[in-house]
């Protein structure tokens, strides 16, 4: 009976060592967690980004901690999430900043604290990061404009449903589209633009406002997932979707 108690005690001691070992690993900079922070979690686009991040995590032996604000307009929440991951001492952070200036202090704090940070999707107004991986969003807008020019045979009246001020990726896309229409398609006029903002509902409202204001239109450019869905719903509800004329096109990236 004494012997069995001894073995049990040994097992308990061993278990304690294992627990200490795990705790040490967690707090000593050997963390195998990578934080991935999207601009927002409510758009289907970010789900494909998440799938890619988790695939890489599995391949490379890191756990992916996925957390972002629900709405892409919620910069305060994203700043808070970065702060929480800094406190958790994760191995590194992959961040899609939802404000190109709002997130600068947190990104620079990570740089000072030697927490490697890779910026994805949208640029940030500092160079204190490891790497910036994104679509050439301006070029995405250029491609969309040329597609529009081709569908309309170079003539028509077009509206643009923008996303929101201060969002790097979409601002570049909008500029690429507008600049190219102006430069390459003299017969196409951009008659109006409006910000759709962070939800499908607000984008739907913005698109409906533009459609109501302008009776004669030939094309609509929406610059991201949410504004595209909202715009498509607005076109349908007003019975103004001529599917053959306005074939939906999307510019995607990994």
């Amino acid at each position, binding site marked *: 009976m004494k012997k069995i108690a001894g073995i049990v005690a040994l097992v308990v001691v061993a278990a304690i060592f294992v627990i200490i070992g795990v705790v040490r690993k967690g707090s000593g900079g050997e963390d195998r967690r990578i934080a*991935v922070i999207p601009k927002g979690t409510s758009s289907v686009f970010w789900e494909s980004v998440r799938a890619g991040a988790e695939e890489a995590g599995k391949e490379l032996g890191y756990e992916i901690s996925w957390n972002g604000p629900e709405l892409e307009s919620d910069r305060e929440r994203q700043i808070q999430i970065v702060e929480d991951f800094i406190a958790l001492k994760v191995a590194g952070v992959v961040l899609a900043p939802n404000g190109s200036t709002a997130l600068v202090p947190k990104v620079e704090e990570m740089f000072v604290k030697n927490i490697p940070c890779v910026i994805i999707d949208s640029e940030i107004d500092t160079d204190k990061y490891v790497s910036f991986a994104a679509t050439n969003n301006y070029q*995405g807008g250029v491609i969309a404009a040329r597609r529009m020019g081709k569908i309309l045979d170079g003539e028509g009246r077009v509206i643009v449903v923008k996303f929101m001020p201060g969002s790097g990726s979409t601002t570049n896309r909008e500029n690429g589209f507008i600049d190219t229409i102006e430069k390459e398609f003299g017969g196409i006029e951009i008659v109006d633009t409006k910000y759709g903002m962070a939800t499908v509902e607000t984008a739907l409202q913005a698109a409906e406002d533009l459609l109501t204001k302008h009776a004669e239109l030939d094309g609509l450019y929406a610059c991201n997932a949410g504004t595209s869905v909202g715009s498509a719903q607005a076109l349908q509800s007003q019975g103004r979707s001529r599917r053959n004329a306005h074939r939906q096109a999307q510019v995607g990236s990994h």
Partner: protein
Amino acid sequence: MGYIGVKTLVDKIDGKDVPKLIDTGVELVTVERLEEPKIKALLNLQ
């Protein structure tokens, strides 16, 4: 982009040199192209 972001971060953690700027590419997707395997993978469609 999620894949490239995590991969680049781990390269940096492992002490490798990583480029400051990575262009993940742009692709025009139309309704006609939705069945292409490349496009399905890009948009994470099953």
